[in-house]
């Protein structure tokens, strides 16, 4: 393979000989490249810094304007309204749940399932449970009462606590505990 010396005319003119294969030349080139890379990194850094400073300045100018401040306040109010809506909605949903449990509809349905010969003596309701004391003429009516309450759709569970004679020949007292169905967690 033949070697070409492209710098021959220069070298001849200046009397200066450069051997591009010499380690000195190659080392010099490598060092130059490293320095150039370093310089490029510094320049790039400076350019980005300047651009960032300009952008921040522009942003600061915009942010300090009264129009922008008003817009931010407006945006904050909208965010507050959104949050207000969210929490109020959660609370309203729970209140509506509470309204659906013990209400006139519940009392009306309860009245509708009690056998005509049975009469309530006492009733304690919470939104979770109900405890009844009925006066019934006989145990058969108590059985029907339990059956009717059980199938009323109002209660998850109906438990007969006791059926006791009133002792005066006036019939029996049936105590019943129920778990209200509307209180069933969804």
């Amino acid at each position: 393979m033949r070697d070409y010396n492209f710098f021959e005319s220069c070298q001849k003119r200046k009397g200066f000989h450069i051997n591009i294969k010499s380690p000195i030349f190659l080392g010099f080139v490598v060092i130059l490249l490293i320095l150039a890379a370093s310089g490029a990194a510094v320049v790039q850094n400076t350019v980005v810094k300047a651009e960032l400073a300009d952008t921040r300045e522009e942003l600061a100018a915009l942010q300090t304007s009264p129009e922008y401040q008003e817009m931010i306040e407006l945006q904050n109010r909208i965010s507050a309204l959104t949050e207000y809506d969210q929490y109020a909605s959660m609370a309203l949903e729970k209140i509506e749940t509470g309204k659906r449990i013990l209400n006139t509809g519940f009392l009306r349905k309860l009245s509708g399932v009690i056998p005509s010969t049975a009469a309530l003596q006492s009733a304690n309701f919470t939104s979770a449970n109900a405890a009844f004391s009925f006066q019934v003429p006989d145990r058969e009516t108590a059985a029907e009462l339990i059956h009717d309450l059980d199938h009323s759709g109002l209660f998850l569970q109906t438990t007969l606590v006791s059926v006791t004679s009133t002792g005066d020949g006036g019939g029996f007292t049936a105590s019943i505990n129920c778990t209200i169905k509307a209180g069933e967690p969804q």
Partner: protein
Amino acid sequence: MNAFLKMSGRDRNLLILLLTVVVFYLCYTFVITPCMTETRMLQAELQSAKDELARAEALSGKEDEMKEQEAAMKKEIVEKYAAFLTDVKQSRLLYKVDILAVGAGLPISSYVPANAAVSHVTVETGFYVPEDYPLENLAFEINPELPKGSSDGEESGSRVSAPDGSGDMLPGTDVSIGFGTTPYESVYQFIAEVEKMNKTAFLKSINLTGSGGTVQGQLVFSFYSLPRFDPNQKDGLDFNPAIPPGKPNPFQ
């Protein structure tokens, strides 16, 4: 320079190689790496600042749109939560309850309000935990058409409430309303009147005893209010004291 020229070619080469390595190390460690790290950081900051600027510029042109959005949201919220009381002041509640009780013919014998407090809405709920009843399971395996869940179970209770730290806390109060012997219809009617208000009030518990169609007992209602942001918002529980105040002898 003379010393360099006097060196053997091999030594010169080694020296140049060493010099190159040293320059590379110094530039890489003290110039290139710190610069590149800082530049990456600055570029991220620049991107963030540009995004913020773009958002700010976009926001600047939307003033009318945002004002309309705010007005629409306010209107929607006021309508959506019209059921809420605007406050749970005892005077207003007592006044309203009294009107409803008189209308329903309920002879209220005691009115005991609890202290108003800011809290989550709590609704006591019951639940049913079926027992694992082997014989029923076996019967069901034998005849799949048998109704499931016919065995007795345990009864328990819990409260539905929001987890701590959530923001759905409202000012609320419980009011216990006791009444003497009265027809059951009056109690029913009173509950119906409260329901008709269609406000954030619900029946928490009922305690009735009676015979022959009349009852006595106690109702407990929970009332909740939503802090209003519109001062003109009304909840329908208007209370305007009408009795003229002031007298010379307070015991007369």
